[in-house]
C-alpha cells in the first residue's frame, strides 16, 4: 500500500543532543511537510518542500533544519533539542495545489 512512513515512532534524546527524524513516502508526491504537534494543540507547520524547493516558515526556530535528498525521503534535524521541543512530529505529503495531505504515524520525541 502506498503510504507515509516515519522512523522511529518513539525517540528519546538528551537535552542538547542532536537528533534526526526520518520520513519516507511511496505516494510519489512532490510536496512534503514537517509539522510539530504538542498535546491539545493544532499541528504547527515547520517546513515544506515543493519538490526540492525548500520553504521555511517564518517562526520556525533556527534549531530546526530539514533535508530532502530525493522525492521519497525527508529528514528533520534538531540541532540542540530543548525540553520545549518534546512533541509529536508529523510528516505529510500532497500533490502540488492538492487539498489533501497524507500523514505519517508521527514520531513522538521525548527530551530528558
Amino acid at each position, binding site marked *: 500500500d502506498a503510504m507515509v512512513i516515519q522512523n522511529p515512532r518513539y525517540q528519546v534524546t538528551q537535552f542538547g543532543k542532536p537528533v534526526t527524524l526520518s520520513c519516507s513516502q511511496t505516494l510519489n508526491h512532490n510536496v512534503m511537510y514537517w509539522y510539530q504537534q504538542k498535546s*491539545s*494543540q493544532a499541528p504547527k507547520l515547520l517546513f515544506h518542500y515543493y519538490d526540492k524547493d525548500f520553504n521555511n516558515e517564518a517562526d520556525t526556530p533556527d534549531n530546526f533544519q530539514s533535508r530532502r535528498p530525493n522525492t521519497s525521503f525527508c529528514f528533520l534535524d534538531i540541532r540542540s533539542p530543548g525540553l520545549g521541543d518534546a512533541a*509529536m512530529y508529523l510528516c505529510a505529503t500532497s500533490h502540488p495545489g492538492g*487539498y489533501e495531505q*497524507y*500523514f505519517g*504515524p508521527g514520531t513522538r520525541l521525548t527530551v530528558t
Partner: protein
Amino acid sequence: QKEVEQDPGPLSVPEGAIVSLNCTYSNSAFQYFMWYRQYSRKGPELLMYTYSSGNKEDGRFTAQVDKSSKYISLFIRDSQPSDSATYLCAMEGNQFYFGTGTSLTVIP
C-alpha cells in the same frame, strides 16, 4: 485573531447520539475545508473535504460549509465507540491551517 478556531472539548456522548463539531475561521479566501480524524498517538487521516460552500455526505458523516458566516461543521450520525478520536478541521488558502482539534469520546 487565530485563522481557525475550534472548541477543544472534550465532548462525551452516548453511543447512537448525533455529534456536531464546529470551526470558525477568519480568512474569506479559504476555498477547501477538510476534516481530519486523529486517533491517540497516530497521525491525522482525512475524513472529508468540501470545496466552497455547501454540504457533503459520506455514510454517517456530513460536512457543512457556510462561507457567509465563516463557519464549518461536521455531523456524525449514530455515533459509535470507534468514532472516539480527536477531530481536526483544516482549511487551505495559500497554506494549510489546522484547528486545535476537538476530543470526542463515544460511550458504549
